[in-house]
């Protein structure tokens, strides 16, 4: 019996090997494959899973009934330091992954064994903020594309990992950097520019995939004479506080999370970051377009077709760098090409993605920086007095980690920080290239001595975000939660509450599984319809990434990173 089982097992392995050799054609990935990514659910072809960034997979081998049987298939440990925010790609059995600062690795998606590693040497004088991260790659044709911390865009041969071209995009010593995973479409690669804490002038730009030649560049801060520039208002003749007459030149609006694409509308959507300086808004009077906004660009020309500003005249660092989730929903009885957005400022939004029209805005976490919306969807701001807490805190109600939309449940799933507040303070700051341009107190977790003593009840000392030991978050400082939001109402259908906060993205599947994690280090599977916990396993470190699912030889895998290790699970 044992012998027979062994022979059978061997036969299966051989069959698997044959299947592997047969199907692993490793054909190029032209735009058509990216357009039809839903037809090859075994692959994870782009950062958001598909052009709509739905992070929804039709793979159905892993179900709510068997998810508890998931076992570790393999692990890859990154031999680097620092928080790791990867979203891998998987193409025809090969996984492509980045690790800090700008390594690209090709692995066998079944065993985790490495085929090749490409190491980009960053400039020694680069200036980069907030973690030297890279969030991933794009693939088009037979090339992989990665933005680098020293503001280059590079193309690698997908088979060998050899450099094909390298294009300098901006000056890294002035604070420009690229951490975003590029978006590839048609014959081009689109990236955004990070560096919002260094007074950059943000932009989104497209490069010819074949050559690296720039095709268009669209600044996220309009220059004089361009529509929107009037929102960088002229300084008053006599101002009691510092006002910067050239504020627009270094006004931020960075782009550091990947956008989405609607092929029918030929629009690509990108969220923009905070205005610069982050906290001293009074030195840049006006709404400061297009900071803290979503911009819809013509994919061919880069021309901004419409925009919506979530947080005009942002003074809280409420980056709108969440992934734009595109969904075709029923809105008030009619089909609607919608954009769903759980913003860092604490509101959940539904926009008409063809026009940018505001359809719905509703808080999904406690907030007090605004009291509601006017008839045009503009927030009615209610800045808090000095020393008083503002909800949500600087990390926001949600942040860069990706949400998911399931067309089965018609729910938007978001990793959120609930009940987290901050006291903001501002300090005038003069712009110098390459120097920090915060203009305020970034982490006022306790009231400033001498300031009003009314802090957050029950939280005299809110833990710092970069606290030492992990998992010492307290409920007085808020908590993490997965929320399932009904886009037709903005109401949460269910919440899965965690003690610690979460920086883990989400994916959902055709079996109504939801996979996510959190800072506590648990990889967890929820029932997407009810939020019920189905399975969890402790990976032993914070999860700061977007998990994915893929299949090879008919076997479905779940990949998620915790700490500096990528763990891949499968059914026995």
């Amino acid at each position, binding site marked *: 019996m044992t012998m027979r089982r062994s022979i059978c097992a061997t036969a299966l*392995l*051989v069959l698997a*090997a044959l299947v592997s050799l047969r199907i692993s054609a490793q054909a190029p990935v032209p735009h058509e494959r990216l357009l039809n990514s839903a037809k090859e659910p075994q692959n994870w072809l782009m950062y958001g899973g598909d052009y709509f960034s739905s992070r929804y997979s039709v793979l159905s081998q892993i179900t709510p009934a068997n998810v508890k049987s998931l076992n570790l298939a393999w692990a890859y440990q990154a031999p680097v330091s620092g928080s790791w925010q990867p979203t891998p790609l998987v193409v025809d059995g090969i996984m492509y992954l980045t690790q800090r600062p700008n390594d690209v690795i090709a692995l066998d998606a*079944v065993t985790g064994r490495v*085929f090749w590693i490409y190491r980009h040497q960053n400039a020694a004088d680069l200036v980069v903020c907030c973690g030297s991260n890279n969030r991933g790659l794009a693939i088009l044709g037979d090339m992989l594309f990665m933005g680098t911390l020293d503001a280059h865009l590079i193309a690698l041969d997908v088979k*060998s990992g050899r450099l094909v071209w390298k294009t300098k995009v901006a000056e890294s010593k002035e604070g420009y950097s690229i951490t975003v995973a590029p978006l590839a479409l048609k014959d081009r690669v689109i990236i955004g520019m990070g560096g919002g804490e260094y007074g950059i002038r943000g932009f989104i730009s497209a490069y010819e995939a074949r050559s690296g030649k720039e095709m268009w560049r669209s600044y996220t801060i309009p220059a004089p004479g361009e529509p929107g520039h009037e929102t960088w208002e002229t300084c008053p003749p006599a101002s009691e506080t510092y006002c910067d007459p050239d504020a627009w030149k270094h006004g931020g609006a960075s782009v550091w999370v990947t956008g989405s694409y609607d092929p029918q509308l030929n629009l690509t959507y990108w969220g923009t970051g905070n205005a610069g300086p982050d906290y001293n808004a009074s030195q840049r009077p006006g709404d400061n377009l297009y900071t803290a906004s979503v911009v819809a660009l013509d994919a061919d020309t880069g021309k901004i077709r419409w925009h919506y500003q979530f947080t005009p005249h942002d003074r809280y660092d409420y980056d709108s760098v969440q992934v734009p989730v595109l969904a075709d929903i029923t809105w008030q009885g009619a089909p609607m090409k919608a954009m769903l957005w759980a913003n860092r400022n604490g509101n959940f939004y539904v926009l008409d993605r063809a026009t940018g029209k505001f359809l719905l805005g509703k808080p999904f976490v406690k907030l007090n920086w605004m009291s509601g919306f006017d008839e045009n969807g503009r927030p009615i701001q209610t800045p808090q007095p000095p020393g008083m807490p503002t909800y949500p805190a600087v990390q926001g109600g949600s942040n860069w980690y990706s949400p998911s939309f399931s067309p089965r449940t018609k729910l938007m799933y978001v990793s959120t920080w609930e009940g987290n507040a901050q006291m903001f303070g501002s300090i005038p700051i003069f712009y110098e290239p390459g120097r920090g341009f915060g203009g305020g107190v970034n982490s006022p977790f306790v009231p400033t001595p001498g300031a009003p003593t009314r802090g957050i009840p029950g939280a005299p000392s809110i833990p710092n975000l970069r606290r030492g030991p992990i998992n010492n978050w307290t409920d007085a400082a808020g908590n993490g939660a997965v929320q399932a939001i009904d886009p037709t109402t903005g109401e949460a259908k269910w919440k899965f509450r965690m003690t610690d906060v979460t920086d883990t993205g989400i994916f959902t599947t055709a079996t109504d599984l939801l996979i996510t994690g959190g800072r506590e280090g648990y990889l967890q599977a929820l029932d997407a319809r009810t939020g019920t916990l189905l399975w969890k396993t402790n990976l032993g470190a914070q999860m700061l990434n977007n998990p994915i699912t893929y299949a090879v030889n008919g076997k479905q895998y779940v990949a998620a990173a915790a700490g500096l290790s990528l763990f891949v699970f499968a059914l026995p």
Partner: protein
Amino acid sequence: MVRWLMAGIVLSGAVVTAQNPTLQGHPDDYVRADIEYGARLYAEHCFGCHGATGDGVAGVELRSGKFRNAVTDPQLRTVITNGFPTTGMPAFAFDPVELTGLVSYLRNMNTFDPGSSKAGNATRGHGIVDGKGACLSCHRINNVGSRKAPDLTDIGAVRSAGSLERSLRDPSSQMMPINRPVRIVTRDGKVITGRRLNEDTYTVQIADEDGRLLSLVKSELREFTVSPRSTMPSYEKELTSEEIADVVSYLLSLKGR
């Protein structure tokens, strides 16, 4: 297996010798192709100050083989790389291949006759690589060509002139261990050939001749052979010495991106 290892050690040694100069070699230790390449570089970068006979700078006699601040070849490479800012000699950003050429020339400057040089023509070499040599049917340069054999896009920055010339005449003598051809036969008789990218006790990762990345479990293979013999043909009789010099000259110009 032991035989492979031995072969590997011998070959590795050959490559190291070619790429890493001796501490201070006898003039005969240097390869003529490197000396010729160095002579060209000297003419381009050093001639202006040091002159044709190496005595253009007061107190410096390059042909003497004796240098005040460098005894060994590695020290000579350091001097060229760092320069002497206080004396007016600038730092030079030569790559390792160029440094090998320059050092080889400096060590043989006293006896080398530039007039005897058969320095190749890179343009003609490019034509041979794309045409008569059919090199791109196996190799890839600047994203054009086959992935069957190693990519040559930056070969001029990593292989010395002498090594390149020997590669053309006797490919196996210069083959890096990572490029040894592998032959795999699966249990059902399917034959896979390619180059090994990675290997552990239980699995092997290869790029097959079509450039596909394959990860295979050793226990599922009937045969797994790594050959010390290159599948590249020798060009000793296919090309003239002048043509080989042309190809070497072209390959030396491939510095990557």
